Structures are given as C-alpha cells and as structure tokens.
C-alpha cells in the first residue's frame, strides 16, 4: 500500500488541472480568458478520459471538443468581443445566490460520489451480476476501444456494448438539421432599426 501509484499521480495531475481551470472559468470575468481556461479544462478532461481507459472518447474529446466546438466558441467570442461585453460585471447578489446554490449542489454531489464510488463490500458483491463484474474488474487489460465502439454504433452488440444504430442515425439527422439551422440563424440580415437603448427592444 505504501508504494506510490503512478496512475494516481497522473490522475491527480489531470484532475487538479481540470478543477482549477473549471473554477478559473467561473471566476474570470474576461470572456476571452474564460474561453482559454475552458480549452485547458477540457483538454485536461481528455487526459482523464485516457486514464480511465477510454482512449477513443479522449481522442474525440480533444478533436471534437477542443478542436471543434471550442474553436466555434472562440469565434463567437471574437465576433462579439466589443469592449463593453468582454467583461460584464455581475451583481453581488447574483454571486451570492449562485454561490449558495452551487455550494448546496456540491454538498449534495460529493457525498453521493463517495457513496456510489466506494469499493465493493462483501454484501454488495452478492448482487445479481456478481460473476460478470468479477471478471472485468479483476483483470483490466488495456485494449483499444475504437473498433468495438464503432461496431456498437453500427448496431452490433458486443459482450460489453449494446447496439446504438437508431440513436446514431437520429444524431446524424440532428446534426444536419442543426447545421442548417445554425447557418440560417447566423446569416447576415438586415439589421433591425437600432434603438437608442439596446436591449429594451420588445417588438
């Protein structure tokens, strides 16, 4: 037990990084910095994914999320980053409410995490699927998961994966619709008559 666990060190590294940058996002008031911190936080999350053996998901996280979605966001930031909006101040009362709500949520979540994630006790192992878990949990082998995920997505159920063909198709259509919609929404339009007091327009 006394030996230092390399896995744990790496986890701690990425975990702390993730937490720190998440919080940095919260507490930074400058939107550009927030975007930067967010990228770092998500990148660190992908590290956690790798550590958890989810190589494909980690890669996707890096590629899709960090490389795609966030770049999109950064574009958004750049498009709207006029001076008054770079750092919009939030009223103190909002902060207090948010901190209270967030704090309570955290207080609820953390105990649940400990409750759910505890290593098995003798009693709990006597559940229905005890034999199957015993195999997987005792001998973890690092196998690339991409193939099996791909097969799963194409509707081939494996020994530890169900078939996801229908959701996959729905998601594809969804993506298409979204992209079309986004393009439609974001297209340059005739600007509505600019009011003196932006934001009060209620036509």
């Amino acid at each position, binding site marked *: 037990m006394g030996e230092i666990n390399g896995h744990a060190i790496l986890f701690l590294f990425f975990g702390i990084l993730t937490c720190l940058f998440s919080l940095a996002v919260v507490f930074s008031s400058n939107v550009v910095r927030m975007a930067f911190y967010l990228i770092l936080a998500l990148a660190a999350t992908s590290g956690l994914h790798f550590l958890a053996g989810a190589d494909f998901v980690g890669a996707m996280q890096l590629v899709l999320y960090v490389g795609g979605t966030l770049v999109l966001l950064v574009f958004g930031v750049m498009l709207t980053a006029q001076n008054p909006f770079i750092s919009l101040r939030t009223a103190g009362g*909002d902060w207090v*409410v*948010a901190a209270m*709500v*967030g704090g*309570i*949520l955290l207080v*609820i979540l953390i105990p649940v995490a400990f409750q759910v994630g505890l290593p098995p006790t003798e009693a709990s192992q006597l559940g229905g699927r005890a034999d199957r878990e015993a195999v997987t949990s005792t001998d973890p082998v690092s196998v690339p998961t991409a193939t099996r995920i791909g097969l799963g997505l194409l509707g081939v159920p494996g020994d530890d994966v169900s078939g996801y063909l229908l959701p996959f198709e729905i998601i594809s259509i969804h993506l298409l619709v979204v992209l079309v919609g986004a393009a439609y929404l974001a297209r340059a339009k005739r600007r509505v008559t600019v009011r003196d007091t932006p934001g009060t327009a209620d036509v």
Partner: protein
Amino acid sequence: MESILSNLLLIAWLLPLASFCVILFFGPRLGAAGRGAAYVATGAIGGGFVLSLISLLTWIGTHGVSGGHHPDAAEASHVSLSNHVPQDVFHFAAESKDSHSHDDTHHGHGHGHSSGPKDAYFGDWYTLVDFGRLKITIGYYVDALTVLMFTMVTLIASCIHFYAMGYMHEELHDVTDHEVTLSNGEHLHRKGRYYRFFQYLSLFCFSMLGIVIAGNIAMTFVFWELVGICSYFLIGFYIERKSASTAANKAFIVNRVGDFGMIIGLMALWGSLGTFSFGGEKNAAGEIIKPGIFAQARAAEDDYALKTPAGMLKRAEEMGAEDPEHIGHLLLIVAGLGIFCGCVGKSAQFPLHVWLPDAMEGPTPVSALVHSATMVAAGVFLVGRFYPMFTPEVLLTIAIIGCITLFMAATIAITATDIKRVLAYSTLSQLGYMMFALGVGGWVAGMLHLITHAFFKSLLFMCSGSVIHAVHTNEMTEMGGLRRKMPITAYTMLVGCLAIMGAGVPTIVGLSGYYSKDAILAQALHFGKNNATWDVMFYVAAAGAAVTAFYMFRLWFLTFIGEPRDPHRYDHAHESPRVMWMPLVVLAFFAIFVAMPADIENFTDPTASPMVQLLEQARPDGTGLDFSGQLAAITMPAEHGSHAEEIHLAAGMIAFGTAMFGLLLASCLYWWRILNPEEVRSMFAPIYRFLRNKWWFDELYETIFIRPTIFCGRCVAQFDQRGIDWMINGLASCTRTFTSGFDRWIDKIFVDGFVNWVAARTFAIGIWLRKPQTGRLRQYVVFIVIGTMAMYIVATFGLTN
C-alpha cells in the same frame, strides 16, 4: 412637657400656613404692591422661630445638653417603651474594639452593651383616613432632632425672608425681564409678583416644617410632595422663562421618580406592618395600641437590635415563601431601599441629581432656602429619621450612592462658571457627604453636617445672591475684584468658604464644617477598617475634601480677587442694602460657631459640642451599637468607635491635608496666578469637556429615558387610533356594508360572486405565476438547479422513508 412642646411646634408649624392663606386671598391688597405680604410672611416665620427656640430651650431645660441624659422618670406625660437603662455612649470608646462582633448570622451587637430608649414624644392630631386597624394620620414625633431641625429651619428661613425683602424689591413694581424676548423682539414687561413670592415661601415653610414634625412616614410623604410642589412653583417663579418652567418640570418629575420608589417602600411597610407611625398608635387614653415601625423592627426586649419585624415574616409566609425569614428580610430591605429612593430624589443623589443644578433658575433666596439648606436636606433628614429600619445592606447602598455623588458633583463644580451652579454642585457634593456619613454608620456625623451645612450653604448662596444683585450676572467670568466694592459680602462669603472647606487648626479649633467633616471622615475610616472591601470610599471622600476646597476658593478668588474682567459691571457694583447683609452676618456667625464645643477646656474632644450632645440624645435606639448584615458581609461599626484617638486624629489630619492641598492649588491657579488655568484646561481637554458637560448625564437621560417614554406614548396613541379604532371602524363599516345590502350581497356571493371569485382567483394565480417568469436566463438556471436538488432530496428522503 409633651403637650407644651407639641403645641408650641404646632403653632410654629401652622403660622406659615396662615400666612400663606392670608397672602393668597389678600396678597395684592397688603400694602403698596403687596409689600405687606413680606411682613406677613416674615412675621409668621419669625414667630415660628421664636416658638421653636422656646421649645428648644424647653427641651434643653428638661434634658440638658449631655448626650447621655437620663430621662426624668417622674415626668408624667413622658412616654417610654421600656425601663430606662442609662446610656452613655462615650464611655464605650475604649470598649468599642471588643464590641466589633463579626457575627454574620445574626445582627451582632455589642457585648454588655445595654441601651435605653431615647426620649421622644409622639401622638396624632388628626386622622386622615381610617379603615379598621389601618389608620393614616397627621401627627407629631418630637425628639431632640425634631426640635433642632425646627429651630434651624425657622432660623434660616427667617434670615432668608429678611434677605428676600431686599432681594426681591424689583418685583414691587413692573418688571422688564431681560431674559425673555417676545416674538416682536422686545423684552417682556410684566407686573411685579412680590407678594406671590412670599406666598410660595410661606407654603414652603409650612410644608418643610411638616416633614420635620411628621409623626409617621405617610405624613412625611404628604409634605414631601408638598415641598416638591412648592419647589416647582419657586423654581418656575419666572414663569415666562422657558428654561425656568422646564427646570421646574424637571425637578418635579425627577422627584416623582424618587417618590415612585418611596411609594414602593411605603407599600412594603404598610402591607406587612399595617402602620406608618414612627412611635406607635395610641388610643384615646394615651396607651400605645400598636407599636410603631421602629419598635417593630428594633424591639426593646431584643436590646434594640435590628430584627425582621414579625409582620414581615407573617407576610412572607402568606406569600407562600419557603424561607419566610429570608423573604421577610428582603421585604425589610425593599422598604428601606424604597424610602431611600425617595431621599435620593429629594436630596438629588447620584442617579437623580440632575434636577438640582437646573433648579438654580429660581430666585436666589429660593436657592438658599429650598435648594440648599432645607428641602434638599429633607432627604438626609428622612434617612436619619428612618435610620432604625435600615439594614446594613441598605446602609451600604446609601454609603455607595453618597460616595459617588460627593465625588461626581465635586468634580463637576470645578469646571462650572455660573456662580450659583458651582454652589449647586457643591450642595450636591455636601449632601453626598451626609448620605455617605449615614451610610457608614455615622448618624450624628451626618446629622451634624446637615445642620452645619445648612448654615454655611445658605450663607454662601445669599452671598452669591448679593453678588448677582450687584452685577446682574451669574457668570464668574464677568466678575473679579469685587472685594473692594462689597467687602461685607466678600468676607462673609470667605467665612462660608472656609466653613465648607472644613478649615480649622487640627485638634484645637475650627469652623463648623471642620467638626462635621472630621466626624464624617473619621467614621468613614472606622468603617473602612472594619470592612476592608469598602475602605476605598474613605479615600474618595478625602479626595472630595480636596476638590471641595479647590472649587470653593476658585469661586471666591474668581469673584472677589484680581482685576475686574468686566469693567462696566464692576463700576455699577455696590454693597447690598442692610436688609440683605444683616442676615449674612447672622449666618456667618452661626457658620463659625454652631458646632463649636461650649467648654474651652474640651476643645480637643470632638463630642464636646452641645450640638453633638443634643444630637446624641436623638440617636435612634440601637444604632449606637455594631451590627452586621445578613446578605452582605458588612459590619456597621458603632459611631462612638470613631472617636477613638488614633482614628479621629488620622482622619482629621488627612482631611486637613487634603483641604489645604485644594486651597493651595486654587490659590496657585486663581490668586497668585502661578499656573495658567487655560493651559491646565487645554492639557486636560477631554476631562474638561467631560466635566463641563456634567458627565453627560442630561444627554444620557434624554436618550435612555425621555425619548423612549415619549416614543412609547406616541406608539400607544398611534395604536389607539390606528389599531383599536381602525378595528372598530373596520368592524363598523363591515357591518354597515353587510346590513345595507344583505340580499344583494347574498346574490352576489352565491351566484355571481362564486364564479367571479373563481375567475378572479384564476387570474390572480396567473398573475402570481408571472412573477417567477422573469425571462432571465441566469435565474432560470438557478431555478433548475434548485428544482433538481429538491427532486434529489425528495427522492432520497421522501421516497425511501
């Protein structure tokens, strides 16, 4: 003997009342502009003085002037409560150390010390109300103290009446009051009120003498209130001045606060003892049918030791007390504290002292008579009269209050510049000394100081009045050098200052204040030696002596020495007329000699003075002995112990030293001008401000008492109109609506009403539901999170159970 004394004093007492009635009805018609009123009033009080002098001489004739007088058993009318055992307190000075019995469980008293009853005549003149065995009467209680006080009050009052004839002469014709400015910018012109002044003075004398002669505590209370109202009228004599009427109100109301406590004391006595009489209630045959309160607390068969009266024990049992002895004792303490509370108000002691300085708004003769010599001393007199009922715990309270007062008032007097206010604070301080003396067991010391103080303080006030009369200002900063213009006033006032300072050559001779102050300090030292916890009070009192000397000579130097600070006023100053300075000389004479031993051989004996001897005759039964407290561990040392050489000499030396120190300091600052007062002031600026603002008592009381009371009154009035009346009116209008259209209303409520109600409710719910729909994204987020958490909590705790 008894009938002679009581009748003499009765006449002396009623004379001022007659004068009051005469002036009330015929005042303006007595001579030109009511000048005759002064003669009527002065004649009445002068007659009173003659009668009281006769009764004093009668008293001395039968009882002599030795403190250990053995009453003549053959005296037919003499009333005694038990067999007379010779009492000679002075022989026990040496024995006193043995008799300090520290017996905490009982009221200890001296071994082998048997004391006989003092001489007192008492009886009733008139029954006010009478219910079965309960009786409230107007009666008399005459002992040496009564006679002495009677003589003192009438003498000083006579002097002041003479003085006032001169001082108030402006009121004989129309007066222009320069202190009152009307709305048109002019000063007020009004008719003179010469006769009314003497009318009030007469009523005051009557009331004051009523307190002195009172045969029961209820009668004391009656006249207590009456002197209060006289004081109210006299302070507010210049009714046009807002400050005067406010000061009068303040005086009366603050006194009422004290009276509130006094009523509680009266109730505690009345509810358990069923009598108010000091001496006892007699039937027609002159037999005592009910023992008085003193006899109930200090029974002759107990050797006059203080015991909880049987009535109080019985009352405690009726109240269902588990420990009647304890509760009964508490009742006795409540009674004592209550009565003392009244004295605190009347004598302007520490928490209730605020009214006396403001009372200086009245004319100066009033300040001299009412607010220094007599009325304010009535509180001290009552403490002395009621002394047998005070437990050591109460006495300790009295001592503490007195000690605080004497020090606080003395410090304030240092910074005051109004000549009358300096004297007012000095009065407070001296009253504190008296209370202090009584509280530490010095009955004779306190009473002696009461009498000496009356003389020199009325002298000082009248001198200040003479100065004010000459320069028309109260501010000492506008006086100076007046010694040359008004020598008689200056030197009589010097006598007063020396007397109040307690000047004298230690162990040889001194002015009246020397003897009384020495006696107080000696007893304080004696008390401190017996109760180490409280010996600090002696040092405070000694320090107070220094401060006293300082502020008195500050006053004298500022007024009479040096260069005139206001040449205009100085030029117009003049010596007062003879009718004014003659009383000064008379009082100065008494201020010097009143406490002096008659026997030149015996000058070193502090008790050799006839005054002290007479007071010893009046000493309440049983108070010449040590006794100790039940709740607090205190020993009240017998007063004669303080006459022991080492105590008395030490105290005398300390008093002399401190007074000299104060005198020297005052001389340095205000006579020789070695030190600059301005520099000293700026050096101690915070302290100066603190003292100059009178320790901020007025502001404090304004904040914590007056404003909340008025606020409370407003709240109640508002509640009355907004609360109760609103309800009533609402009820009325509801009823009216209800009755006026009952059927329509039924129709409405059951047919239209219900439907409309549903509709309106629905609408209202919609409106209400609109409120959370703010359209704010961020709030929605919060709502979502809260909802989630609520669901989680419900799922966890609500469903599983």
